[in-house]
């Protein structure tokens, strides 16, 4: 456990990616295969279900720390993280770090707690706290509550493992996808030189794109590029191998059961086929609003009524595997031609669910820019620009694929409420509610909490504390004084909001300290936007 907590500290204490990779390499070199497997499991964001309800942990921690419950809760408010709060409150121990391996702590001291009765659990937890030092307690608390997170991307873990094993990053990334059990065998197979991967369900890593951040013309000749509408749904991969189907979302969730129409349609795909595409709510040959798709997200099983109201399709972009052969290194133009051939040969009813959309043709960049203006009315986010000769790469490389999104809608609004953040931003006022004018009154219209620099956040935090009018629990109302430019992607009528509208992806674009509150926008302006939108 000590090595793992040292690794956690090393990762937590630096924001330089090279040092993070270095720390992981050091850990993997020293760790047993079983420990390494668990470490990968946790580092790549996987976690076991919560083992002990947090309410019980809170209670026991307060008892052992000999502080009243209310003081525990206020401490938690200030820290913003339960596992850390407990670690900070528990009495100091003489423990200097457990030499017992991570696998032991997970398999023998953590997972089995689930089967114990409450008094046995309490005793086991107290005993664990007693044997661990402050950092290990923090980490163990996170394991027990199923809330372990660390600031490394999957990509960095892959880089470290590639460095340790000498195996290509792409292969490691591929082997890490899908579902697997963290044990010594898994780790040994992961670093196995042979590339015969048996796991049928395994998707390929997604090829992602950056937002275009230079003039369009610098991309060169438009004839080397393919422009696709950028759809606003769930990016997904559909796998058909050995008579089985798997639908993976980009978050690496297996979502086959949530979208049964896509899974059923996939039964007709030739064996050994993998498609890259977007899950979209689709009716009468038209994409529906994202809000409709949200009704289906998060439901494990979908009722008949909802299936009828919000049918989905997989709008296919790319072909990653065909005839059991990895197609990713072939050129996009070849992959796309083959993709269309496959889809066109499917039975007619299936072609309603596994669909493709024509690429956008334009003679030059200027013409393409013009067409982009249709984005909002088409309910898309702009274009994806892909080089026709590009392979399907891993991660978010620059060069071949670009997002070319339309500018967000913007509004100048006044901050009227502030709330403390959680996690990284706990104890600072970082979540704000914004208002616009309506008949001489400020009406709340959106909440947003991103887009400011740390320095700006500290300044706003100070403003909030110095200008509080009232407090309601965690929320403070403040003197209306600060004006911010907010950006959002879409706007819809809403009966649930006082302002009568709901916006999508609201975020702070910048702090307008050059503006007075009188200069903020009005609700009328927003309603005009709404009309223009629909």
């Amino acid at each position: 456990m000590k090595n793992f907590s040292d690794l956690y500290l090393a990762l937590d204490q630096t924001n330089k990616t090279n040092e993070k990779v270095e720390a992981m390499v050091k850990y993997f070199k020293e760790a047993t295969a079983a420990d390494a497997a668990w470490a990968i499991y946790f580092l790549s964001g996987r976690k076991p279900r919560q083992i002990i309800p947090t309410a019980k942990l809170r209670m026991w921690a307060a008892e052992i720390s000999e502080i009243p419950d209310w003081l525990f809760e206020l401490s938690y408010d200030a820290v913003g993280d339960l596992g850390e709060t407990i670690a900070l409150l528990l009495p100091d121990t003489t423990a200097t770090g457990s030499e017992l391996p991570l696998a032991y702590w997970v398999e023998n001291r953590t997972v089995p707690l689930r089967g114990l009765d409450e008094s046995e659990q309490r005793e086991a937890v107290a005993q664990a706290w007693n044997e661990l030092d402050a950092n290990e307690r923090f980490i163990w608390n996170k394991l027990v509550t199923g809330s372990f997170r660390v600031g490394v991307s999957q990509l960095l873990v892959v880089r470290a493992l590639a460095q340790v094993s000498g195996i290509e990053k792409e292969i490691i990334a591929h082997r890490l996808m899908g579902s697997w059990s963290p044990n010594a065998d898994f780790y040994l197979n992961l670093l196995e030189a042979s590339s015969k991967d048996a796991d049928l369900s395994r998707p390929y890593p997604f090829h992602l794109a950056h937002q275009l951040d230079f003039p369009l013309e610098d991309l060169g000749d438009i004839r080397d590029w393919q422009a696709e509408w950028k759809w606003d749904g769930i990016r997904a991969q559909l796998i058909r191998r050995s008579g089985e189907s798997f639908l993976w979302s980009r978050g690496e969730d297996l979502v086959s059961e949530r979208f049964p129409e896509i899974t059923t349609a996939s039964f007709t795909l030739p064996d050994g086929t993998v498609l890259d595409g977007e899950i979209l709510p689709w009716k009468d040959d038209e994409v529906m609003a994202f809000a409709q798709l949200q009704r289906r997200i998060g439901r494990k099983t979908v009722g008949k009524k909802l299936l009828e109201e919000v049918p989905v399709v997989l709008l296919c972009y790319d072909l990653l595997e065909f005839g059991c052969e990895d197609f990713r290194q072939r050129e996009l133009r070849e992959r796309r031609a083959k993709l269309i051939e496959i889809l066109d040969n499917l039975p007619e009813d299936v072609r309603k669910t596994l669909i493709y959309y024509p690429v956008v043709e334009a003679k030059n960049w200027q013409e393409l820019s013009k067409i982009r203006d249709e984005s909002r009315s088409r309910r898309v986010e702009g274009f994806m620009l892909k080089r026709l000769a590009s392979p399907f790469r891993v991660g978010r490389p620059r060069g071949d694929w670009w997002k070319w999104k339309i500018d967000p809608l913007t509004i100048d609004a006044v901050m009227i409420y502030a709330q403390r953040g959680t996690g990284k931003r706990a104890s600072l006022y970082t979540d704000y509610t914004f208002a616009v004018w309506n008949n001489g009154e400020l009406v709340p219209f959106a909440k947003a909490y991103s887009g400011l620099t740390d320095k700006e956040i500290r300044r706003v935090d100070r403003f909030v504390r110095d200008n509080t009018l009232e407090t309601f629990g965690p929320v403070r109302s403040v003197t209306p004084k600060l004006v911010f430019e907010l950006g959002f992607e879409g706007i819809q009528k809403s009966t649930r909001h006082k302002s009568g509208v709901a916006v999508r992806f609201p975020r702070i674009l910048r702090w307008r300290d050059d503006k007075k509150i009188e200069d903020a926008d009005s609700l009328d302006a927003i309603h005009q936007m709404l009309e223009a939108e629909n």
Partner: protein
Amino acid sequence: MRLIKPTKRGLYVEPGDFYIDPWLPVERAVLTHAHADHTYRGSKNYLVSKEGERLFRTRLYNEGNIETISYGKSKTINGVKVSLHPAGHVLGSAQVRVEYKGEVWVASGDYKLTFDPTCAQFEPVKCHAFITEATFGLPIYRWTKPEILFEEVNDWWRGNVEKGKATVIFAYSLGKAQRIMKSVDASIGKIFTHGAVERLTRDYRETGVEFPPTKYVGEVSDKKEFAGSLVIAPPSAQDTPWTRRFGAQSTGFASGWMRIRGARRRRAVDRGIILSDHADWDELLTAINATEAEQIWVTHGSIDILVRYLKSIGKDARPLETKFVGDAPESEMAKDEEENQQRINADDAN
């Protein structure tokens, strides 16, 4: 009788007609310590501790009539007996004891009980009413023993020496910076200082506090000198072009707030060094008990929380509202930053 009351100018001792740490100009002020949020310019007469004289004169630009008094000695102002007692916060920091018609009140100012080699150790003063700060008034705040903490800092510094990196610590320029330079193992490497730090350290030295040799960064012509050295700078210097001259570097931020991981991460430094010149939770309770006061007035920080806790253990505790805004952890840093920013600008102009 309320011997010390909050007013819009600061804490006021009515029968003596003087203020403690006033933030607006007054006729007569008694100061607890030389941090900018306690020592304001513009008053006519100041009474300060002998030990802090140089720092106070620097902070006050030597303006006004500045009278000094040694710890433990008393002076009578309009019939009120006043004396200063070590608060252990920074050099020259004092608790103010006032006595009138047999009633004794003590205003703590800022204080800590942890050992600090740069200033006199906190002394509990028996009183009827004690005004305590509560900056870190939550049980999550418990400081590491300085000897363990500085061993960790030394290890980190040594590691950086091996990698050829400079070690850059951001810490308040008055108090914490000096505490660090006096507590680290100076045999590891050279110590360089930011202008704001160097100037105040000079005041410390002239008062008689000894330090390992330090050198003002601005006097270094060969940047190679910084590799393996320790640089001490105020928080506002973080992420400014000023730090580029050190080349490869590992950065640390010294503050009690660093006890919380979120605060550490927000600071975006390589190391959070949990070092405070304020009392932690246990020290607050120890200090309050030691005064044997019947009445506890809580100001500055987690006021409501400490009051509620003290009441729950049977004490007569009340909030004392002052200009200081409650529960304002990182705003405090912002304040220090603004102050130091002015100093940096002044430094850059030089």
